[in-house]
């Protein structure tokens, strides 16, 4: 487990000479020097010898990520999210437009309905008036004819009454003649009888 500690330590202990004195095999030299010095290795995150590699790879990988984000990933994501937002906004606008349109249609319909209602009302009123007038006229006609008939009937009744009254005199004369004949045994003359009856009737 010492292989990763030693080089770092070696850098601390003898940085320049190690590489300067023995250029062909730097790694081995570092290790040896490290062991000889026997000090403590630096805390790993503060090991400056490992920094250049990490800087390089950070630049490579973060740069790659940034490029991918800028060129590919963020445009794709924003297309989805903003596209949906636009779509929703558009749909809402369309819905609003349709609502206004339907409101307008409803208004037109209601107006037409009100017109039709008032027209129907007028027609109904007119026909009611007409029917009423016709009925009144008819009733007047019928009443007039009934009155005429009543008058005629009354005339006839008077006639019949007069005739009947005339008949009453004749029946009274006959009855009187019959009664006289039955009582006295002697047939009275019709003139006498008529005179006597009319004398009684006028009393």
């Amino acid at each position, binding site marked *: 487990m010492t292989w990763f500690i030693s080089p770092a330590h070696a850098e601390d202990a003898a940085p320049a000479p190690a590489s300067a004195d023995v250029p062909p095999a730097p790694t081995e030299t570092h290790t040896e020097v490290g062991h000889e010095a026997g000090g403590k290795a630096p805390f790993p995150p503060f090991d400056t010898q490992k920094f250049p590699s990490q800087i390089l790879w950070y630049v490579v*990988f973060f740069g790659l990520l940034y490029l991918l984000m800028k060129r590919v990933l963020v445009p*794709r*994501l924003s297309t*989805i999210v903003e596209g949906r937002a636009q779509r929703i906004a558009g749909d809402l606008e369309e819905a609003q437009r349709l609502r206004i349109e339907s409101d307008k249609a409803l208004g037109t319909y209601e107006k037409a309905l009100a017109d039709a209602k008032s027209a129907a009302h007028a027609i109904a009123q007119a026909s009611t008036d007409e029917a009423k007038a016709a009925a009144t006229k008819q009733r007047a006609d019928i009443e007039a004819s009934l009155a005429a008939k009543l008058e005629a009937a009354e005339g006839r009744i008077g006639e019949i009454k007069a005739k009947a009254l005339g008949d009453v005199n004749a029946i009274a004369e006959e009855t009187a003649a019959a009664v006289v004949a039955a009582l006295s045994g002697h047939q009275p003359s019709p003139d006498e009888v008529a005179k006597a009856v009319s004398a009684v009737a006028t009393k």
Partner: protein
Amino acid sequence: MANDPIHQFHIQEFFQIGTIGDTEFHFTNSAFAMGATVAIVAGFLYLATAKNSLIPGRLQSVAELAYEFVAGTLRSSTGKEGMRFFPLVFSLFMFILVANFFGMFPYFMTATSQIIITFLLSMTVMLTVVGYGFAKHGFGFLGLFVPSGVPMAVVPLVSAIEVISFLSRPISLSVRLFGNMLAGHITLKVFAGFVASMASLGAIGVGGAILPLVMTVGLTALEFLVAFLQAYIFTVLTCMYLNDALHPGH
């Protein structure tokens, strides 16, 4: 060595890729962690946006959630013009988040527990702030250090404080993330080490090992929270600093 809590932060050099002068460049375990992080982030976002459906599936919902989350954070602190920095901020958030979570897997390196990486992340932010600030406002960007409404007598003092606070930003930004990840992983390792060392003491030890085991489980959950929280804090602070670049005059 297995119980050494520091062991997990060692940079292991897998193979050398070249030298410039005396400087050796290696492919290391932190490079692997960063590469895997980028691969996971890019692969996930690519697959999640592949279908481009109006009604999102599970993957797409997660990607949209991350997008809306970061976009909302950026928009609320920098306004609409801050959205030009969205690719950078989203890259930072996803990179730190996934790198932090990546470190939660046993045997994997936490790239964000290396101060050089967190320092580079914060320098990425600060260089963007300074570069964009000067490009957009010229020397007006220096108005950042002169708060308005301050009496002329105390302006030098306030400006000095502002300059110091500005210069300490990359340090605080990087040390916060580094310290959180480092401390969390060390604590986790120490408690997990207690379990092993107590269990080796026999029957009483096994009984006693239950407590650190429970602690380890609890700390693991806490570390997942911290992993997200630190990514979020880094993002929020990035947004605030970018706001300075966009609107230097407080």
